[in-house]
């Protein structure tokens, strides 16, 4: 494509050196597979685009597609900033990701079943035993319990980034309560509503089938016949930052949204209190932290949770998605060993690349990390959302010193990785009234039933809206984009 074709919206677009750009292979040169899509996006003038962007934000606010801001006790809600320029993934790239993600999920699923059973992988010394059994979220009391339906990661979210060579790499696994899928669906709805002229209708895979696939997945692990199964979504309540999503999923699946006080356990079965008396519950999609699930097991001092839930779970009378104890597999110090899990359980070579990782629990790694703090990104193994992190290259000397001390005193809690230059995607910058490159990541969602994993064709593209930033988390200035996965050639 020549320069003249990238006029209009992309007329003044200049690449960020040292990064892979999702749209352009060079200045003014659109990647061949996206030419048609970019051509229809370019037909908008800056004014038109600005109007559509404002309409989109208005629509999200009116519909209450918001998250609660923790720091504000008035319960303020904000929209998750939305950028109307879509992220596009070619069908070839997607085929590779789809295969790689399903392979990874199968291995992680087998790893969890093994760790809560015979621990063969530890006995054969393929992963250091102390690293796994020392993980904060490993729950030894669950060993020997097979969850109803046998699945443990019903819903997985795997964060991917793309390096300067255009290679997708797994950054981390989210196997407990990954969130964000509601934005995938709402972003698509809004895009179609306010920007229909650009929507490349014939060539983009749909995402709106997710709720029904999720409902099927949940019913597939029910202890009773699928037709008689009562599924509920368990939320901490309207003040939780992800409440919109909890309510969205209950609504789009047509099931009840409950809070812990609505549930109780009798004879090791779970019931919900209704206006017509108690009613049995068979599958719980819980969006609460497992530490607040059952005070009998996790926090005897807590008023929160459903006493007896874990007994009912252990007896197989209720399926809980995701299973309890999954945190041992998405621990960041266990992450470097996922390729080894794939080789061990599946006898396959990993399809997806990872990011090289130093595990501070290992002495030689730790020594390297503390000597190279200014080049590395350090992460606490059990935190998420961009918290407990040191961005070495941007940090001050005193911040680095504070992290050095923390690493020395609790090495098991930290890992370090070289900072990967995230890929960039054209993004509307309202102050500049033009499109500029901003860094993005990608979180695809994978549903697993006893029949195996299925990947939603799309996912959440998060974007660091602040110029120069690498942090895409909504709590720290991140936004999101609609993610278009192109259909393969017919």
């Amino acid at each position, binding site marked *: 494509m020549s320069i003249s074709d990238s006029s209009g919206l992309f007329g003044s677009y200049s690449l960020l050196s040292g990064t892979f750009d999702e749209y352009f292979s060079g200045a003014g040169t659109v990647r061949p597979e996206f030419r048609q899509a970019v051509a229809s996006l370019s037909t908008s003038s800056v004014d038109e685009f600005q109007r559509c962007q404002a309409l989109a934000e208005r629509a999200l*606010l*009116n*519909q*209450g597609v918001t998250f609660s801001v923790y720091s504000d006790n008035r319960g303020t809600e904000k929209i998750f900033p939305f950028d109307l320029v879509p992220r596009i993934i070619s069908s070839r790239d997607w085929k590779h990701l789809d295969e790689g993600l399903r392979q990874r999920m199968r291995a992680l699923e087998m790893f969890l079943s093994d760790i809560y059973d015979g621990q063969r992988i530890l006995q054969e010394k393929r992963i250091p035993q102390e690293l796994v059994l020392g993980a904060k979220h490993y729950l030894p009391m669950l060993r020997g319990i097979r969850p109803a339906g046998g699945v443990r990661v019903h819903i997985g979210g795997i964060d991917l980034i793309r390096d300067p060579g255009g290679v997708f790499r797994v950054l981390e696994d989210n196997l407990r309560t990954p969130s964000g899928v509601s934005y995938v669906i709402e972003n698509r709805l809004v895009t179609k509503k306010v920007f229909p002229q650009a929507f490349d209708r014939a060539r983009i895979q749909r995402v709106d089938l997710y709720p029904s696939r999720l409902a099927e997945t949940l019913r597939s692990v029910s202890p009773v016949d699928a037709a008689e199964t009562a599924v509920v979504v368990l939320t901490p*309540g*309207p003040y939780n930052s992800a*409440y*919109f999503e909890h*309510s*969205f999923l*209950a*609504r789009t699946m047509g099931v*009840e*949204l*409950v*809070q812990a*006080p*609505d549930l109780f356990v009798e004879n090791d079965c779970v019931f*919900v*209190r*209704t*206006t*017509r*008396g108690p009613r049995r519950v068979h599958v719980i999609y819980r969006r609460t932290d497992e530490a607040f699930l059952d005070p009998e097991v996790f926090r005897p001092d807590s008023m929160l949770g459903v006493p007896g839930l874990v007994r009912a779970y252990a007896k197989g009378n209720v399926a809980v998605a995701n299973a309890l104890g999954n945190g041992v597999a998405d621990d960041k110090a266990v992450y470097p060993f996922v390729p080894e899990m794939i080789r061990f359980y599946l006898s396959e070579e990993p399809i997806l690349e990872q990011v090289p990782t130093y595990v501070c629990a290992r002495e030689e790694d730790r020594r390297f990390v503390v000597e190279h703090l200014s080049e590395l990104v350090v992460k606490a193994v059990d935190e998420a959302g961009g918290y407990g992190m040191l961005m070495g290259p941007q940090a001050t000397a005193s911040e680095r010193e504070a992290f050095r001390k923390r690493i020395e005193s609790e090495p098991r809690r930290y890992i370090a990785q070289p900072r990967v230059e995230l890929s960039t995607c054209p993004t509307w910058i309202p102050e500049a009234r033009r499109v500029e490159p901003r860094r993005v990541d990608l979180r695809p969602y994978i549903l697993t039933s006893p029949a195996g994993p299925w990947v939603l064709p799309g996912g959440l593209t998060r974007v660091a809206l602040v110029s120069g930033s690498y942090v895409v988390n909504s709590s720290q200035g991140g936004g999101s984009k609609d993610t278009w996965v192109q259909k393969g050639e017919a």
Partner: protein
Amino acid sequence: MISRVADHCFWFGRYLERTESTARMLLVTQNLALDGELSARQCWRPLIIVSGEERSFVSSHGSDAMADAEAVQGYLTWDEENYSGIKRSIEFLRENARSIREVISLEVWEVANELHLWINSPAAAAEYRNHRYGFFRHIRFVSQLCLGLLRSTMLHDAPLNFIWLGVLLERVGQTARTLDVHHHAFTEIEEAHQVVETSLWLSLLRSCSGFEPFMKRHQGSVTGEAVASFLIFEPRFPRSIRYGLHAALWRFHEIRPPAEHALPGAGTEERLKELEHWLRAQKAGLKPAGIHDLLTHVVDETAGICNVIRKELLGVG
């Protein structure tokens, strides 16, 4: 249906009706005050009393403020301490809606959410300052739209039944209190000019959306007794006490069919039925002097029924 969700539905209905009713009364009273036949106090004081907030209003604004149109309107619209005021009612109605987002329709949710966004926006404050009539009319219009959308976009099953039960019981209480306060005030006006008295009764009808329905029944002859009797007993007027109780009982039977004795709700059924029967029996032989006692009984019993519903069905207490 989950008890906690039913509780939110019930309160969503009550706050929605309260919002609409407060906006409508403010609108009508503004109109009445313009006629200039009544003192400011005679116009505005009843609103404070109907809202049930006389004590807290007097303690924060002083008794004289009941003659101050701006103070009364500000209190009933914006005051954060006034839990039955418009701003607070909208806040509560939207909070309840958000808690039951998965059971109400998208249309109902959008309207409730947009009302909440609007009342908190500078545009609403400017409208209140510059175009008071338009301000109240907007609130009234949007809440009526919401009431209509409930019935035209939601499944007619348990959630709607609980919302509507809340709407009806709130409405019964509002009509009873409004009539009681006005009835009392009119008897205080000594040797009122007949024109004045008639205009008062008409404004009362308007504040209950009953002007035209009343005229259709009475062909222009307006007396205090006829108006009171209409608002209490008219079986076909949707804001009369009798209609409200009858409809509430019907909704309740949808939620809990009388034949299903094992279901919770026996106490509610009994009390609601009793009040409905009692009211019907009062029509014959009601004297003007007995109206206050009748209305007081309705207000007390309605509050009592709400408490029994909460205990038996909504998992509260």
